[in-house]
């Protein structure tokens, strides 16, 4: 969909390059500029068959790599020409000094993807997924009752920020289609994560105190928890009145339907300890397989918690092409597929350092003044 769009990626690490990956999946021509030593992410994770660290492969498929050292005057001249020829420039922290001196062409979209944004007291401070989860209160929402905050394992800040950057860049393309004008965009992981606090903000704003960490319960509805079975646990989540009736029918406690303590979803949430005890009394004397079978037959949202191994072997995940095997010199590397099914594809492994970038740069600059 973004076929041939010239994207100059001037950032390293996770969030910014992940946004670049998504643009590349959509067909954009992404040149990733790397210092002579390479993006530090190349050194993270066990080296794959091509000698590149696994982490780099995850977020850099479909791109081309250009080595350029802004300390060298020849490289700097090339970078300046590319920064004028690009339709989209993705920059990170620290902001490249040389880029500040290259005026943004009127139709260009220049997007900074950084932990804290370009304004505010923390602008420019070093960040990472864990740091953003810690400082925005995302971690504080996660943890067992009475326990310490714990990070969400999947890097929700890096992923949320990258997706938000794609949204903003393409929204700016839409605006450009109407007006012909590009613009600068300041995407901060900090802002994205504050917006993700969502359900937790109400009580914090109303009372000045956040709701306590609540393990696997939901802020607003019940029953919603992991329940013990005789050989494990199942997760059961409900929010509607028909689902509550179905739960009571399932656990053979329809007498509780008349109990005023459970009359609305908010009352059930306020009495979640009692609600959960009703359910656990029934699940704990049954095997997981039986609880799952009966729960699914009742059309209730119910699940066994999948370990990573289960996900990687799940037909549903594979059918949606979320696991991609890409060729690299000497073998293959496995990376997640595209979230843009039907419009995007992950089909080329991340480039070796310097691979393909010079040719791409020549093609960009063909016919442009030196």
């Amino acid at each position: 969909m973004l076929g041939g769009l010239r994207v100059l990626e001037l950032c390293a690490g996770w969030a910014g390059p992940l946004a670049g990956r998504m643009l590349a999946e959509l067909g954009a021509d992404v040149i990733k500029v790397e210092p002579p030593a390479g993006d530090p992410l190349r050194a993270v994770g066990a080296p794959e068959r091509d000698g590149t660290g696994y982490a780099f492969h995850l977020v850099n498929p479909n791109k081309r790599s250009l080595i350029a050292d802004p300390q060298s005057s020849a490289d700097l001249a090339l970078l300046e020409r590319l920064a004028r020829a690009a339709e989209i420039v993705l920059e990170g922290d620290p902001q490249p000094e040389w880029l500040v001196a290259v005026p943004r062409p009127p139709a260009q979209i220049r997007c900074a993807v950084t932990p804290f944004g370009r304004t505010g007291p923390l602008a420019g401070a070093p960040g990472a997924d864990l740091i953003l989860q810690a400082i925005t209160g995302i971690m504080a929402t996660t943890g067992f009752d009475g326990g310490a905050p714990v990070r969400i394992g999947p890097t929700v800040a890096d992923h949320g920020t990258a997706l938000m950057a794609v949204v903003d860049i393409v929204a700016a393309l839409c605006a450009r289609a109407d007006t012909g004008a590009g613009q600068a965009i300041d995407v901060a992981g900090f802002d994205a994560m504050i917006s993700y606090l969502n359900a937790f903000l109400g009580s914090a704003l109303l009372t000045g105190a956040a709701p306590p960490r609540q393990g696997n319960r939901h802020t607003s509805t019940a029953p919603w928890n992991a329940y013990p079975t005789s050989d494990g646990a199942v997760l059961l989540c409900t929010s509607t009145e028909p689902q509550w009736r179905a739960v009571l029918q399932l656990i053979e406690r329809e007498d509780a339907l008349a109990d005023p303590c459970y009359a609305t979803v908010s009352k059930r949430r306020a009495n979640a300890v009692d609600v959960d005890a009703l359910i656990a009394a029934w699940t704990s004397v049954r095997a997981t397989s039986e609880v799952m079978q009966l729960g699914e037959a009742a059309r209730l949202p119910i699940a066994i918690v999948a370990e990573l191994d289960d996900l990687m072997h799940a037909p549903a995940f594979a059918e949606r092409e979320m696991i991609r095997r890409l060729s690299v010199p000497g073998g293959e590397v496995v990376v997640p597929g595209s979230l843009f099914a039907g419009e995007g594809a992950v089909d080329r492994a991340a480039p070796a350092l310097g691979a393909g970038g010079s040719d791409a740069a020549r093609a960009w600059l063909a016919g442009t003044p030196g």
Partner: protein
Amino acid sequence: MSGALAGLRVLELGQYTSAPFAARMLALLGAEVIKLEPITGDDMRNWAPTIAGEGYFFHLNNSNKKSVTLDFKHPRGAELLWRLIEHTDVLVENFGPGTLARNGFGYDAVNARRPSIVYCSVKGFGSTGALAAKPAFDTIIQAYGAMMATTGPAGAPPLKAGISASDLLGATSALARIVVAIYRQKTTGTGSFLDVSMYDATGFATQTFWPPYLTGGDPARATRQGNRHPLLAPHDVYAARDGSVAIAVETDAQWRALAQLTGGHELAADPRYASAEARRAHADELDRSVAPWAGARSVAAVVTACRDAGVPAAPVLELADAIEQPHARERESLRSAPFRGGEIRLTQLPLRFSESTTPAPEPIGPLGCDNDAVYGTLLGLSANEIADLRAARVI
């Protein structure tokens, strides 16, 4: 300049978080968003905690939209929905699997009447695949997508992300896909069907755990490990004198800077810790070098020393402190809006455009408050016709 998506009309047939969150962001990008609610309203309108008697969570997911009621299962309601669709550029929905198709509003039928439409279905497991028919909520997807399995202390039971991370990642991926499809619509005139899966987005986000799993390394690195990272170390929360501090070393240079602080030149130059893989393999040892250093200092001193050295660090804040910190205030992460005689604080679009404008957050009105404007002005129904529809409980 106006809003990036000015002039675009979005019809949201949504409830809970995924589709409403995506549609709200479209409204903040400048689109006109009409939220169609059943005549009893979105379930979340009453969810606690409440402000002026209305659910706060509902307002966070639904500001800057118009509220219109419609029973599209009523024959006259179905006719009205068709007329609305004729004025719609983007339709976004998150009903249970197959609900809209059963009622005659599946993509094929809608596309036949309105070929340019962008039609986005946000489902727990997507609209195709082995689990497509399964009912889902956020935490069900966190469970299937291995998010719970990779969250929580090592050795403890799986733990859900507190925030509804699967809803939110699903919503943000829906939003990204919608905006891409709008760009296609603008530049080529063609419509799209977008099959968005919260499961895909959740599984995708587990990717940092894939390398240890797929390369057969230490199995403890391919599952929940508290605040550690499967590929990086030091990466944890440390007890400082007066609170907790998170430190995350992502690069060799950051490691050398931190080691310089905690153990001096000797530690920084230690070849045993020169690579990320080696550091992760020695995470226990490295944590033993960081912990006493952090423990002897205040949170502020640790964070300042790290930041000055270029090492990512932050206090672990409780949420109420997080949203009132100076950076949040200066970035205007939350903005006040007039609300039912008082005011309400709402999140805003999490980015800054230099040119496109973004509307200030404005709470959605009471249920059906925009019926007259939408059915009257947009569809051209008379006041009598609208009153009649209301009396027949169609709207």
